[in-house]
């Protein structure tokens, strides 16, 4: 081997590494552009007296790498409702929807959320005007929902729809432990920023945190990581495998969950008892819906999962809990078995339902609501229901 190769070959190797990282990052930024702002900029998360809330009359926009441009408009009550707050339209059947980020329709334009699609679908199926007022707000675990429940009932809705996700139950916490937003820190930079700001950021990061944390943090901010994850998680089985590697967050899927998870469920049971009682007094039906997480939907669709897990477990527990207290539980999970790759209805890395997922939830929810779960919305005949579905 010529002597110059002792220098040339390692240099060539280093150059290859640098070129690979820079070119992949640039390609990733080109394929997956984002905005420096996020929807959470219009929200307040650190007010213990109210829990998370939207800033009244604010507007924000965001673009998820694999999502479309999303505008967030909050009305004078701080809700992303698509209408002003106040009394219902005369003659309309009003549903008030509660929940966290999924109910809010995070990452998805409002017109494509199930909050917007459901009333249209229900109006078509039932032949009566149905409107939905969305009070969903990210990071609203059941205890925060309970804080606002009397205000919800005071507005005299015809039905309250509470959209739960496994994450909400897990996030059940006291208001003082709510996370503090740091959107500026996570805002992705421009292409020029990649070259100019990176060394500074690295120096600051290393001065403040441990090396593995810094590496993980830097990696998480790079679009290369997003690009690779996005394509890896397109595979149903690979996503489920990677998701089940999580420790705490998959308790809801475990056949034998931890005591901590069981405590959360007991807390939820207490809160639902209280909410059901209030709803009964106000004579407003409380309907609870569990929206599965992406991995849960994938597992149900695959029909196969490791023995220590059961994607239906939480569904069964919630149904029993809600029905015992006299509420109505909407069960959409079994229907996912008949849908091809329902996990494609979610953003592969972010995990929130995307527009396709919101349409899927709206369709399944409308079918359940009009098939007798809520008497006021029951479609009279099967043929009517079928014609409604056809539309």
């Amino acid at each position, binding site marked *: *081997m010529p002597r110059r*190769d002792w220098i*040339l*070959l390692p240099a*060539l*190797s280093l150059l*290859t*590494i640098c070129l*690979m*990282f820079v070119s992949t990052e640039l390609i990733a930024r080109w394929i997956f552009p984002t905005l420096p702002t*996020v*929807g*959470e*900029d219009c*929200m307040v*998360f650190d007010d213990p007296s109210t829990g998370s809330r939207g800033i009244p009359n604010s507007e924000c926009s*965001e673009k998820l790498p694999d999502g479309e441009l999303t505008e967030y408009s909050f009305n004078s009550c701080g809700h992303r409702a698509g209408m002003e707050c106040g009394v219902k339209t005369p003659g309309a059947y009003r549903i008030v929807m509660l929940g966290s*980020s*999924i109910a809010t329709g995070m990452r998805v334009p409002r017109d494509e959320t199930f909050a917007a699609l459901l009333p249209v679908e229900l109006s078509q199926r039932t032949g009566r005007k149905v409107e939905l007022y969305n009070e969903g707000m*990210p*990071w609203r675990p059941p205890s925060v929902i309970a804080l606002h429940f009397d205000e919800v009932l005071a507005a005299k809705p015809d039905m309250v729809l509470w959209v739960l*996700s496994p*994450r909400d139950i897990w996030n059940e916490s006291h208001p003082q432990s709510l*996370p503090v*937003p*740091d*959107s500026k820190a*996570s805002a992705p930079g421009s292409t020029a920023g990649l070259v100019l700001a990176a060394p500074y950021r690295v120096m600051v990061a290393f001065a403040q945190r441990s090396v593995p944390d810094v590496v993980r943090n830097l990696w998480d901010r790079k679009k*290369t*990581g997003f690009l*690779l*994850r996005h394509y*890896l*998680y397109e*595979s*149903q*089985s*690979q*996503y489920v*495998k*990677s*998701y089940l*590697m*999580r*420790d705490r*967050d998959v308790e809801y899927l475990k056949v034998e969950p931890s005591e901590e998870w069981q405590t959360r469920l007991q807390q939820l049971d207490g809160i639902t008892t209280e909410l059901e009682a209030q709803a009964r007094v106000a004579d407003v039906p409380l309907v609870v819906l569990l929206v599965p*997480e992406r*991995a849960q939907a994938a597992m149900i*669709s*695959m*029909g*196969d999962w490791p023995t220590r897990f059961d994607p239906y477990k939480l569904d069964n527990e919630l149904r029993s809990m809600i029905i015992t207290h006299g509420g109505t539980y909407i069960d959409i999970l079994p229907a996912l*078995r*008949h849908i*091809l790759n329902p996990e494609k209805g979610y953003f592969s*890395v*972010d*995990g*929130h339902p995307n527009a396709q997922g919101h349409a899927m939830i709206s369709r399944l929810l409308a079918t359940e609501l009009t098939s007798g779960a809520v008497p006021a919305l029951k479609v009279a005949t099967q043929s009517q229901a079928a014609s409604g579905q056809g539309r």
Partner: protein
Amino acid sequence: MVLLWASIVFIGLLAKDLIVILPLAGFLLLGYTGFLLLERGYRRSLVWSILAVIFAYIWLKKYTFLPAGIFLHCPYFTLGLSYIFFRVLHLLIETGDDGHQKPRVGPVAYLLYMLNFTTFISGPIQRYDEFARDQFADEPIPLGPRMVALQFERIIRGFFKVNVLATLLHAVQDDALSQMYQPLPLSLKLFAALRLAIVYPFFLYSNFSGYIDIVIAMARLMRLRLPENFDRPFSASSVLEFWNRWHMTLSNWLKTYVYNPLLLLLMRRISSVAMQPFLGVFGFFVTFFLVGVWHGRTSEFVFFGVLTGGGMSTNKLWQLALTRALGRKGYKALAGNPTYIAAGRGLNFAWFAFTLFWFWSNWSQIDRLFAALDATQWIGIWLAIWLVATAALGSWEWLRFVLLSLRTSDGPLLASRYLRVVFATALGVAGLVITVLLNQPAPGIVYKAF
């Protein structure tokens, strides 16, 4: 001694408990006892030693045709046993055979050969004389910077094949498998069936050949040469050729110790000249039936063996029939025809993919799979796989030929050390990053603000 200690540490890390190794130790002792008896001239013990080793093997592996009551019911270590089995039999046969130079194997050399960590888990199956030639050489084989670099390049390639290619292909197969069981439209099911059948052979190749790349390179860095186990198997244009390119050390072992002796025995017993070509057909069936049976202990592997042996013997019969119909020259001309070769390559791939159904699944899965589509649809799938494989593998061979024909003054462009450094670096970085990602938990719902 370095190799012995490394091997002991390797097994210790895998086993973690001394007691679970005892059955394996017993198996090794049984083999060595048989070897000592033969070495001391007790030639009659050869058959009994071989039978005892075979029985001990199927007993320890819990082959399902044995009554369950006779098995050991405590947990024990069987990793590597399948390959130790071949090495033990090889030593016994070579020692007991008059026609061969008997190997001299002391207890330490025996343990070194049996437990060599580079070949312990999945081969390749090395002959003792080849192992001893390097391991006990007065002058160790040279290991210059170029050789070290070549081995690192091979380790990177193997790492990429095992950790990235095989993992991703396995995910594709899992996805296709789950779609076969879902209530989906026919077009999607047909596509899933196509993916399911096509992907598994590539997964198996990436996984196994990647592992072999790593162990051969590691052994070479320890100045030990291991035999190659793969030689571009999907370029084979017939089933007979395929098994000369796939898991070569296994098929060579079986040809040496099963096919050849069986053929000699049959030729001695059956003197009819007309029958002699068919003795080879029968010999192929038996030999490659054993390939299937060795791979697993259940009836699925017996069937896999029937298909593998059946494929080999049918291919041999086809050769005989064509030779008879076209004459030797005519058959040779046909066998050299590029279209015939390409079609044969595709057919071999489709057949291998079909036989592997009994390799990776069980009867209940197979029942469900074959019930998911009707017979006509499945026939259509296999014909489509034949066509797709013919076109794709043919294109790959053409591309390979074109790339290898690009030359510089130093030789083929692809062999340039500069290009290889770039390729190995890219493969290594990509392999590392994707491996880390694959082993990281997927995020749940992400709140961007936090």
